[in-house]
């Protein structure tokens, strides 16, 4: 399996000195979906932000074999689509269609092509017919799908999703899982939702205190770290 994301000895500390990542080594291959599990504050989001150059730590990040550097970041961002944890952060233009077309326009596509891509992405996420609505008037689930459409419209080679099931009800989570399974791109998905991770990911990586503590199947890691409800005694 050809690696599409390679992270080697990645270290990152925030300005206040807090060590967020400590020697991360991670590879994601073509067609592979990897779940990134770990507690709040374990460094999941920080790691994801390194994968399209929004944060720059010490170490090496290769995207499709190309080193991610300040000079290559702009070009590589077109290849790595990031869906953020808070959809409200991602949606900032006044209409859904304009917001989804924002990425393709930045990639240099002419307006007609950008709009075609945007409409196709909205259709693929089940959001046809809301082109002219204001993103901030949508439900949380719709916002999440618009945010995903905004990334899919860029036709990225790799998808990065940060807590994609947040705010989604179970049917919406299942729809998202179906959508992700149908997308051919390799994916790295940070999530706390073990059932969702098991449904979409081939394998999982468990992050603890900025380090990769374990790798394996989602089910094995969930058992190892007591990360699901199996050990919970139900109400008497």
């Amino acid at each position, binding site marked *: 399996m050809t690696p599409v994301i390679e992270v080697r000895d990645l270290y990152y500390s925030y300005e206040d000195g807090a060590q967020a990542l400590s020697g991360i080594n991670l590879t994601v291959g073509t067609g592979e979906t990897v779940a990134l599990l770990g507690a709040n504050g374990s460094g999941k989001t920080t790691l994801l*932000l390194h994968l*399209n150059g*929004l944060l720059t730590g010490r170490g090496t990040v290769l995207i499709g074999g190309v080193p991610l550097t300040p000079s290559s970041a*702009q070009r590589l*961002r*077109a290849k*790595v*689509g*990031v869906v*953020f944890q*808070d959809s*409200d*952060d*991602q949606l*900032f*233009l*006044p*209409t859904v*269609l*304009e917001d989804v*077309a*924002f*990425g393709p*326009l*930045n*990639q240099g596509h002419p*307006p007609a092509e*950008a*709009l075609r891509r*945007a409409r196709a992405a909205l259709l693929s996420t089940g959001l046809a017919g809301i082109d002219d609505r*204001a993103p*901030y*008037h949508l439900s949380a689930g719709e916002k999440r799908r618009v945010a995903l459409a*905004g*990334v899919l419209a*860029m036709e990225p080679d790799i998808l990065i999703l940060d807590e994609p099931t947040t705010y989604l009800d179970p049917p919406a989570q299942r729809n998202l899982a179906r959508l992700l399974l149908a997308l051919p791109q390799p994916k790295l998905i940070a999530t706390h939702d073990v059932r969702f991770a098991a449904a979409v990911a081939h394998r999982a990586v468990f992050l603890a205190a900025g380090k990769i503590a374990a790798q394996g199947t989602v089910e094995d890691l969930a058992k190892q770290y007591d990360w699901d409800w199996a050990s919970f005694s139900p109400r008497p």
Partner: protein
Amino acid sequence: MRHHRIAGWSLLDSPLHRRDARAKLLATLLFLLALALAPQSSALAAVPFALVLLAALFFARLPLLPLLLRSASVLPFSIVFALIEWASGHGPHGGALLAKSYVSALAVLLLAASTPMPSLLHAMESLGVPRAFVLIAQSLFRYLFVIAEVAQRMRLASLCRGGTSPLRPSAGFRASAGSLAVLFARSQQRAHGIHMAMLSRGFHGSLPLAVRPRFRPSDAGFLAAACALGAALYLSVTLR
């Protein structure tokens, strides 16, 4: 979250809402120019202008009272200058200043309430306003929502625990000042998140346009009518 009402009004449908933003922007500028050039001798000079705006509000199907009240937000500033005029023996000038500033604010609000902000920004850009300025205005507009949302969340959090809105002066100076600092810090954090999300979708300092609006003959007709009306208003108050 409750969002800015003007943004909601701008998405309504009316003959005025359907006009091209460039035509409306130019018409508003002409209106303001005619108002500014009108004689300063009396507040009555602003009356015909106000009547035109009231008619436009009616045709735009906009709520009259909220817009009239919001336009009053300009008065604290203009009252200061009106008082200076009055103290220097030019009382009627002060009255005219107050009336003109109020009518100007109403005209700008009418434009904002009948034109979605992105269309307005596109119009500014196509009329030659520097792109940097348009970009700043666009960011300011987005971040105003951010600050409003954060403030609303803080207010709800306080109300849920039996408090009052922490940003109100009634909460006490110390509490209000502290809450303002928190509001600033949270808004800054949120704005940083938005900026990161923009960068991740290839943002490099300019906002490309997806849809270029068409300037229809009806828009040209609207603009011509606005020019004629502006001239008529100016002449009616000048030749009186």
